[in-house]
């Protein structure tokens, strides 16, 4: 824990392949500076998002080694090598991964005497909304998912009556209408698609309608804790798949976002469903990172199976790096404001947000 | 008596003004026709003058014509208005 009044925040360049985001954008650097923080930015940190070093300098940051700072803010989890460069007693903030298999990371941090704050573990409560990076990045992903669908579909999204005939509107189905799903629905509808949403949480029906979409009711409910869905029982799963198989036919674009915290993503679109879809249709699978909602998804790739294009992007928000980084930076800023009291960095474990987000609190 | 009739006249005028504030164009003609039928009330004038004993052949002929006129005004007026209003009568149920 840093004792100096002058807290220094480090912003490394993201090393994960394809990661174009950056943990702090110049605009937010400026704000943190005026709040009394010093910011050290690794040269080229904003390059992926097309933000040059001099923008950071202009905002008041210094270029240098970010790893030696009191607080290091990242997007993706650090490599072992990077962990080795962290200053003992410092705080690391980022998507650190809370899955059991990633406990390795927590151990490494504890060994290094570094506090790790996982952005994805921040509870979904009203007070924490401004730090909710899952929401902010899901918004980006949902928006981009709708665009990906439009791009890969061999047809128009909107209806078009022209001298060369009428093109009917594309029918778009979104499975899993959380933050990303709703955004995908809204975006597809904006583009003129006919949109339908589905989820296992029944309260979502009203939300789906509130973005002007239809609600697909399959009669299966599965409400879990903290606003999340729970995993389905075997029977429910089978029933759901049966009904979904029937429902999916006739849709031109199927966007899937279904996740259950801490588990493999549920399979919602089977090979049978894909076969039954019209040639040229598209499946956009946002659950690629946790295995995919579509049986045929190849995470990170675009494949054509049975004349249907299946897109399973990994790390979609990284492909709109500026906005994604900007929103993420604001989340980081809000978290920093919570952690810093009277100019001192303080992890107050009585605060439910801090307690939930800290992955290294074991002692 | 005269002044009371005047009061009545003024009040009736206000009623006339107040009743017709906003009328859809489509009802202009039926409304004109309906008010037209109402002023057929002059029939009463002819009835009174003849009934209360107008004498002389010419006068009686004139009054019979006046009664016929008034009757045409009243009867024809209301009937024609009703026909004009035909379109508002039966809106058959929709599919």
């Amino acid at each position, binding site marked *: 824990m840093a004792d100096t009044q002058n807290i220094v925040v480090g912003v490394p360049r993201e090393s994960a392949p394809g990661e174009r985001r950056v943990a702090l954008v110049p605009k937010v650097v400026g704000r943190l500076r005026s709040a009394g923080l010093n910011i050290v930015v690794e040269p080229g940190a904003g390059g992926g998002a097309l933000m040059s070093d001099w923008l950071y300098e202009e905002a008041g940051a210094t270029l240098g080694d970010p790893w030696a700072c009191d607080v290091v803010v990242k997007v993706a989890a650090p490599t072992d090598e990077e962990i080795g460069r962290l200053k003992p007693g410092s705080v690391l903030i980022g998507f650190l991964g809370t899955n059991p298999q990633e406990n390795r990371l927590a151990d490494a941090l504890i060994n290094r005497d570094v506090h790790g704050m996982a952005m994805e573990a921040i509870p979904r409560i009203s007070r924490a909304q401004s730090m909710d990076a899952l929401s902010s990045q899901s918004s980006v992903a949902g928006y981009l998912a709708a665009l990906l669908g439009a791009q890969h579909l061999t047809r128009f999204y909107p209806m078009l009556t022209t001298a060369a005939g009428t093109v009917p509107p594309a029918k778009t189905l979104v499975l899993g209408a959380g933050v990303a799903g709703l955004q995908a629905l809204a975006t597809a509808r904006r583009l003129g698609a006919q949109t339908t949403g589905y989820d296992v949480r029944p309260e979502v029906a009203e939300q789906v309608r509130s973005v002007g979409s239809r609600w697909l009711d399959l009669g299966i409910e599965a409400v879990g804790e903290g606003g999340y869905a729970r995993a389905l029982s075997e029977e429910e799963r089978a029933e759901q798949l049966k009904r979904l198989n029937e429902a999916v036919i006739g849709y031109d674009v199927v966007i899937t976002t279904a996740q259950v915290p801490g588990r493999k993503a549920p399979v919602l679109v089977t090979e049978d469903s894909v076969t039954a879809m019209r040639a040229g249709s598209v499946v956009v699978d946002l659950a690629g990172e946790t295995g995919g909602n579509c049986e045929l998804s190849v995470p990170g790739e675009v494949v054509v199976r049975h004349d249907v294009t299946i897109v399973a992007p990994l790390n979609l928000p990284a492909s709109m790096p500026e906005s994604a980084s900007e929103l993420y930076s604001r989340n980081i800023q809000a978290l920093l404001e919570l952690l810093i009291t009277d100019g001192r960095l303080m992890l107050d474990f009585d605060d439910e947000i801090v307690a939930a987000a800290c992955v290294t609190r074991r002692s | 008596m005269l002044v009371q009739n005047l009061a009545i006249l003024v009040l009736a005028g206000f009623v006339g003004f107040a009743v017709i504030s906003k009328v859809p164009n489509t009802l202009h003609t039926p409304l004109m026709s309906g008010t037209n039928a109402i002023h057929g009330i002059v029939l009463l004038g002819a009835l009174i003058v003849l009934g209360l004993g107008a004498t002389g052949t010419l006068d009686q002929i004139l*009054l019979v014509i006046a009664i016929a006129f008034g009757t045409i005004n009243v009867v024809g007026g209301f009937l024609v208005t009703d026909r004009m209003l035909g379109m508002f009568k039966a809106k058959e149920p929709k599919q």
Partner: protein
Amino acid sequence: MSWLQDPVTIQCLYIVAFALFIYGLMGLTGPRTAVRGNWLAAVGMAIAVLATALTPGMGNWWLILLGIAIGTAIGIPAARKVKMTAMPQMVALFNGVGGGAVALVAWVEFRQSHGFADEPAHVSIATLFAALIGSVSFWGSNVAFGKLQEILPGKPISVGRLQQPLNLLLLLVGVACGVAVVAGGTSEWLMVGILVSSALLGLMVVLPIGGADMPVVISLLNALTGLSAAATGIALDNTALIVAGMIVGASGTILTNLMAKAMNRSIPAIVAGGFGGGGGPSSSGPVNKTVRQTSASDAAIQMSYARQVVVVPGYGMAVAQAQHAVREMAKELESKGVAVYYAIHPVAGRMPGHMNVLLAEADVPYEHLKEMEEINGEFSRTDVALVIGANDVTNPAAHTDPSSPIYGMPILNVNESKSVIVLKRGMSPGFAGVDNELYYDHRTAMLFGDAKKSVSAVVEELRAL
């Protein structure tokens, strides 16, 4: 049964009668209550006649019945058989005979009282006023009838620059005779002078007015007849006459004003026309083609009583950005049980899918959008085709005129529907730059103005219904 003949009873019946008139008239101002309103007024009239019949001392029953019989025999068939298109002239005629009755009664009163020898001034003044106005109304209405029935030429007939002085002279003669009578003159020639001069006045005022302005003139004459009836009521001290006549006079005046406004005319201008003054023709467009104009309220009523309305959007809707208003309108109509569809022509607008983009923005359900092939068979079953800023895509010249630049282009056959309402700003042509015959069709009415403003006005009217 003697209490029945008590003057108080009769007066009370009169009160009931005029209450029914008023209540009926209130009903006549709204489409839902109009039919009933008319019959209530008729019941009021029956009560008034009955009450009069009860008046103590009534006689001459055979003559009375004769008159009523003649009137009924003429009135009922006339009202029954007249064609819907000839209604206005029928109203003119009925109004005219009403005025005639007033004039005749006034004349007889003069004769019976020997020139109002023993009557107070207000009786003679009221009677003479009734005679003058009634006579003007009778002759004026007959001219209006003649013009509309095309017995007289519809074009203005005037004696040129002399018109105005002549009319004033006639009025002066009539008034002078009246003043002479009030002042004590008892010669019947004075009365005849009034009747004749006002008859001529009625003729001379209405003859120079064009056919298009006739409805307003008839309404004005109607109000005048009402006033003359009220005057008769004052003379005879009859409450029913006073109230009924005055109500008609007042409401008729307002109505005349409303009608003139709806036709973009002013009453003074029209009457000035009658007096030989200004006031051009009210219809616009090419010389020998005329378009029929309509108003937002009419369009609203027509559509709300339709079973099926087809909206035909075009580039004008896009220019006006009227899509949201259109959607509002459709919703209002649907809530009234009207089926509303949108006919999307392939090249409506200025880019492929132009209408789709706009209507989707306004959240029009896709199922309501119909392609040309699909909807063209529907127009014959459509009550109202509402053309919103579309022009070329509805132009029948594409079918009929091989020399037209749009010849051969498929069009929306809006002219097959029972009626067509076209919303545009003026008579300017569309993209192809050609005139559109549709606008001169007898089934077509134009609602001029910016499409958004017009549609919003229609929405408002629909809500008020």
